[in-house]
């Protein structure tokens, strides 16, 4: 646990159990979770200073809910790291890869493919919220 003020992370996930598990992991890492269970619920939470990073499920009430939310967050503050969690590859054969397709249409800093490994999420969050590191 870190002793400094706990960073708030916006987590948007429509499966209540995945949300609960995410909360347990993130809290154990010293983060505070701001939870929303769908796009509609998340939208009013996107305010300056409300959270320092976001973890978004991709497919919720709309197949691109995660991308829409990510776009809103980046428009508000481009420095806030956004991680999109998706199983879309498995289910549609559609592949997103920031390294291979660095174009700006995906407004997210990292895309993690389900089945989500919490270790990976932890690592990405550490990397993206790393103290003093600049953003592109």
């Amino acid at each position, binding site marked *: 646990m870190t002793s400094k003020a706990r960073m708030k992370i916006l987590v948007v996930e*429509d*499966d*209540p*159990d*995945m949300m*609960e*598990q995410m909360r*347990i*992991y993130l809290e*154990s890492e010293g983060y505070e979770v701001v939870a929303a*269970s769908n796009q509609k619920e998340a939208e009013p939470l996107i305010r300056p200073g409300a959270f320092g990073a976001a973890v978004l499920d991709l497919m919720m*009430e709309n197949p691109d809910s995660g991308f829409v939310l990510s776009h809103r967050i980046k428009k508000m503050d481009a420095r806030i790291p956004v991680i999109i969690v998706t*199983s879309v590859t498995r*289910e549609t054969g559609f592949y997103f890869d920031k390294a291979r397709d660095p174009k700006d249409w995906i407004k997210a800093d990292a895309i993690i493919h*389900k*089945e989500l490994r*919490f270790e990976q999420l932890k690592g990405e969050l550490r990397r993206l919220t790393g103290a003093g590191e600049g953003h592109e």
Partner: protein
Amino acid sequence: MSDPEPLHLLDVLIVDDEAGMRAGAERSLEGFTVALPDFGETVAFSVRSASTGAEALEELGARTPDIVLLDYKLPDMTGIDVLAAAPGAADFLTIMITAFASLEVAVTATKRGAFDFLAKPFTPEELRATVTKAARSIYLQRKARRLEEEKRQVRFEFIRVLAHELKSPLAAVEGYMHLMKERMKGPELQAYDQMIERSVTRIGGMRKLVMDLLDLTRLESGRKKRAIETVDLARSAALAADAVAEMAAARKVEVKVDSPASLPLRADPGEIDMIFSNLLTNAVKYNKEGGRAVLELRPAGSGTVSVRCSDTGIGMTEEELAKLFGEFVRMKNEHTRGIDGSGLGLSILRKVAALYGGEVRASSRYGEGSSFELTLRDAEIPAPEADTALKGA
């Protein structure tokens, strides 16, 4: 082209060594059209010709036609030889032309896949009638192929969604197992009660999905063994109401059966239970605290009962109502969060109702409630042969 009726060309190859025959056939088909209103098409013909077997094979190799008019007696080989050597012989319809309509030729040609025969000499009308028959057959085949492909796509989509629906609870339970394995909440077992509770719930949902899937598969395959007897629907409805009583109490929903004291119908009791249980479960699940669910049964003539299940629940919007009967469709909105279901209940209901000649009609008002209506008729008594066959198997 801006014709109101789209005109489709079928490619016809005429193979005959007599120049007069070739020219005559070409003239007969020139400007000739066949209307196929069943398919919304009008068909015309473009004609190619060949005078020997070798030339015919060359034409067939260059492009596979739709229809081949094939003379049996060619200078270099027989029509049968052409068919045997033709590339893609399964892809065109052959009409054999024979000077002497011999049975032997007919049999051999049919074995080689000839579609029809024309005996020389024939009139332009006879040729057109035969070609019309061939055109219709080609379009029937194409339609069948299209339907087959659509069916394949529906199956594919079903399996894709099914995999997703099975994977979600699996991922949830797996996640909890990892949390427990890592003792994320410390060494006390009580700390994990909620995780265990949720895991049990998700596994239960998965079991329900698998059971519903089996029911649906049995219904679809028509393999379900039916035990038709005289069933008292009033009693079946009371039993189904008892089965949802606990769930209704937890949600503070009042369940009522409104029926004559006795209401006999020739039916399979298991199927009737599927119908009533599905109706009542939905009426309770998608309800509000303090709401009501009413199952009404009314005799509607001999061997016919009308069923109506209405609730004072959350209701549906027009848009939601329109997609209600799709497989795995579960309404996702702020009112339905936390309501479990396989998404197959209404598909099952509709299939079982169809066994009793009933069509399920749904109506709903958003925020006020929904109502499902259907009419059940005496089930047919299965043929005794089928019964013995089953026992013998």
